[in-house]
């Protein structure tokens, strides 16, 4: 990533545009690749891209400015993002990051004067089972320690290419701790596709129906209903989209599916394609999982060579289906299906107004089935063994199994596959968690569960979960957990609608104020009021659930807030003396005359 001359830059940009077929819908891919090579996106480069793709400059700049990983301001040869997950904070990530900044003589979030290095934060990168983790120039490093920080600083100072850094730093373990019907089964290439083909599209859809398969991305929508609606929607071209954005903090099961069971996900996409009549599949892989890209592309190439992808799959005339991978660039909201479709089309990841729904107007306004990677993998099981067999596992309302990403205070973090209906207590016992104070089920957008609720079951009818299972031991501060989540939502709000754009920022500020010891009961009321407002007026699910963690912890762990309050009397939000603190700092005064007594 050396500084390039203008003509070199132009050549690099031209090559990337060519590879992306000058397709305006591939704008995010184009920008991501240019950013990866050049290390930044200058106005000149954005203008060049706009000109060639025939999209206005402002639109291109607007898209670039949306994604966290695209660099518009301060170029640095080494770009480091520490994962800001609360679990990794508990593993010491904050201290390690501060140490790294100290050793490099830099301020957090600002590039060094010489443009060598920048150390910042990013939302959870899906490595909670092996943190603290970070991204360096897009590559994942796990298990950070003080020794690794020191060694990394030396390599950066010496200008060593990231590709030459110690290989073991980049190792990502699968950590599969419990296997059930999905992970425990033996895989034979093409078997699931062959089974689906033998059944035929309509009968295969019937099996999905009798399996009562529900989406694993969180909402639990009926997969058969979605596929049927997509199949019935008018239009000639249809798409299957695999949602592998996995942005919910504490979730990493799709990471493991894509590293150890990618074949299942791809075959699931083929089966979906068969059922709905699509010839093209798109897999949206979160930018944080960039390190998986080469292996996934190689897998697709192998599948094409083996006749499991492409034209006339398994020799069935007219059964054509291929898969393309798109990478995200750091935006949690792009996991929301309509925002994902916008991002796939090269736009800002802003959720759409609905209706129309993706099943009729999805990718490029064509009928599209968007499914979580795990949902698609489950379709393989159903193709092979039939729906009735599948429905026999789990509970009445939640059939089959669920992958959980367990992290936090437990002896054995990792992936656990259970039939639906397992209790929180059972998972805790299996993971070796003792003296647990709380479990955050399904990440910040989910539910915070206290010990008296550990008998509850993980299932759509009780505790629905997209897969995160974050364990907090007795010594943890649940206020700090909620404050971390408040920062997460403020960072990830897309900014489209007023209640979420401003509300997440206000909640974050209020939590910081309480943390600094300046809160009062008035602020607690304010938090509840903001929660109600965002729940009822926000445009999408992110805004609706953004205050859940604060409201949950306020209800279940009130003392964690109470002991921080400046006064437990009802007091207005404005602290006169605190407001003067900046003036005191500027004038260097701290005498009695520079203070105002708060009337109380």
């Amino acid at each position, binding site marked *: 990533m050396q500084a390039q001359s203008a003509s070199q830059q132009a050549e690099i940009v031209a090559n990337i545009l060519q590879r992306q077929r000058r397709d305006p819908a591939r704008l995010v891919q184009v920008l991501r690749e240019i950013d990866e090579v050049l290390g930044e996106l200058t106005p000149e480069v954005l203008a060049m891209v706009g000109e060639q793709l025939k999209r206005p400059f402002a639109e291109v700049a607007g898209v670039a400015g*949306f994604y966290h990983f695209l660099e518009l301001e301060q170029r640095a040869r080494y770009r480091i993002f520490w994962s800001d997950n609360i679990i990794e904070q508990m593993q010491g990530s904050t201290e390690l990051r501060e140490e790294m900044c100290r050793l490099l003589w830099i301020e957090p979030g600002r590039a060094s004067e010489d443009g060598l290095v920048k150390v910042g934060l990013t939302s959870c990168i899906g490595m909670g089972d092996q943190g603290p983790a970070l991204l360096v120039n897009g590559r994942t490093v796990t298990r950070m320690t003080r020794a690794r920080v020191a060694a990394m600083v030396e390599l950066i100072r010496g200008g060593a290419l990231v590709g030459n850094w110690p290989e073991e730093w980049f190792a990502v373990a699968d950590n599969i701790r419990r296997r059930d019907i999905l992970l425990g089964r033996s895989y034979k290439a093409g078997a699931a596709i062959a089974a689906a083909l033998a059944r035929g599209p309509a009968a295969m859809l019937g099996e999905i129906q009798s399996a009562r398969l529900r989406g694993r991305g969180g909402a639990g929508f009926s997969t058969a209903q979605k596929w049927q609606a997509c199949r019935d929607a008018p239009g000639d071209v249809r798409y299957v989209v695999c949602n592998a954005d996995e942005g919910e903090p504490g979730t990493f099961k799709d990471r493991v599916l894509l590293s150890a069971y990618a074949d299942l996900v791809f075959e699931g996409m083929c089966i979906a394609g068969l059922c709905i009549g699509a010839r093209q599949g798109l897999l949206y892989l979160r930018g944080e999982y960039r390190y998986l890209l080469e292996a996934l592309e190689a897998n697709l190439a192998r599948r094409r060579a083996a006749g499991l992808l492409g034209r006339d799959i398994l020799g069935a005339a007219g059964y054509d289906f291929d898969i393309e991978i798109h990478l995200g660039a750091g935006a949690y909201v792009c996991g929301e299906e309509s925002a994902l479709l916008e991002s796939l089309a090269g736009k800002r990841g802003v959720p759409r*107004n609905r209706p129309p729904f993706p099943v009729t107007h999805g990718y490029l306004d064509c009928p599209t089935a968007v499914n979580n990677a795990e949902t698609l993998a489950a379709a393989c099981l159903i193709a092979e063994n039939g729906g009735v067999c599948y429905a026999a596992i789990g509970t009445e309302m939640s059939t089959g199994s669920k992958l959980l990403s367990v992290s936090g205070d437990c002896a054995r973090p990792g992936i656990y596959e259970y039939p639906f209906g397992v209790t929180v207590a059972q998972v805790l016992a299996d993971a070796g968690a003792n003296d647990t104070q709380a479990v955050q089920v399904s990440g910040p957008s989910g539910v915070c569960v206290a010990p008296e609720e550990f008998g509850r079951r993980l299932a759509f009818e009780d505790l629905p979960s997209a897969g995160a299972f974050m364990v907090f031991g007795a010594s943890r501060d649940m206020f700090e957990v909620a404050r971390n989540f408040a920062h997460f939502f403020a960072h990830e709000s897309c900014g489209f609608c007023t209640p979420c754009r401003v509300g997440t920022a206000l909640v974050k500020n209020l939590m910081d104020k309480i943390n600094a010891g300046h809160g009062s009961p008035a602020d607690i009321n304010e938090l509840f009021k903001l929660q109600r407002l965002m729940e009822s007026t926000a445009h999408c699910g992110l805004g609706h659930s953004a205050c859940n963690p604060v409201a949950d912890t306020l209800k279940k762990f009130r003392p964690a807030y109470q002991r921080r309050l400046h006064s437990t009397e009802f007091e207005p939000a404005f602290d006169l003396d605190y407001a003067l603190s900046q003036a005191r700092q500027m004038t260097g005064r701290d005498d009695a005359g520079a203070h105002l007594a708060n009337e109380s």
Partner: protein
Amino acid sequence: MSDVFLLDGEQVPFTVGQTVMAAARAAGRYIPHLCWHPEFQPHGSCRLCTVKADGHFAAACTLAARPGMTVDNRTAELDDQRRTLLQMLFVEGNHFCPSCEKSGACKLQATAYELKMMTPHFDHFFPDRAVDASHPDLLLDFNRCILCELCVRASRDADGKNVFAITGRGIKSHLIVNSPSGRLADTAMSLADRAASVCPVGVILAKGRGFVIPIGERRYDRQQIGAAEEQ
């Protein structure tokens, strides 16, 4: 027989495919809003038009009217939420109404009066936003932008110019113009564009035209926005 739904207990006729907002407007009924404009595609971002339709919250500007639907609009609960949304918009930007050329004709200010917003309530964010005075005929004061994207839609859909776009994300979202220099003078914008006159607040202003209508006699000085729009 045309279909009807109930808006605060009164019948409002609508045609198939019409939104609750469009039907209410056609019937001379006011649902508070900022980002909606009859000439452009609904956007759904300001959320001021959030109503309760058959018990569920929804934005009236994107909600398709259904026969027999019961819609609550000016209830205490909903207006209270709207007041909070307005306060959010005020503290998010820098709004000094007394010195703003748009005062009295500004939809944000007028809606705040309509909903009896007495204070900004929240701490101000005081964002650092520059003014763009590069264009010979137009001034952009980004301090007042409420991100309604009416200028984005007008420039794209009416003028065919794409002069405006939003960049950034979350609370850092902001408006930009279509030139690598970042200056309005370097775009195709002209005073005659629809986008030049569509801004509901005082961001996009014609230069050299101060106080043509004196304060006190402007549109919403004469009549509250609710009454002004109910005709």
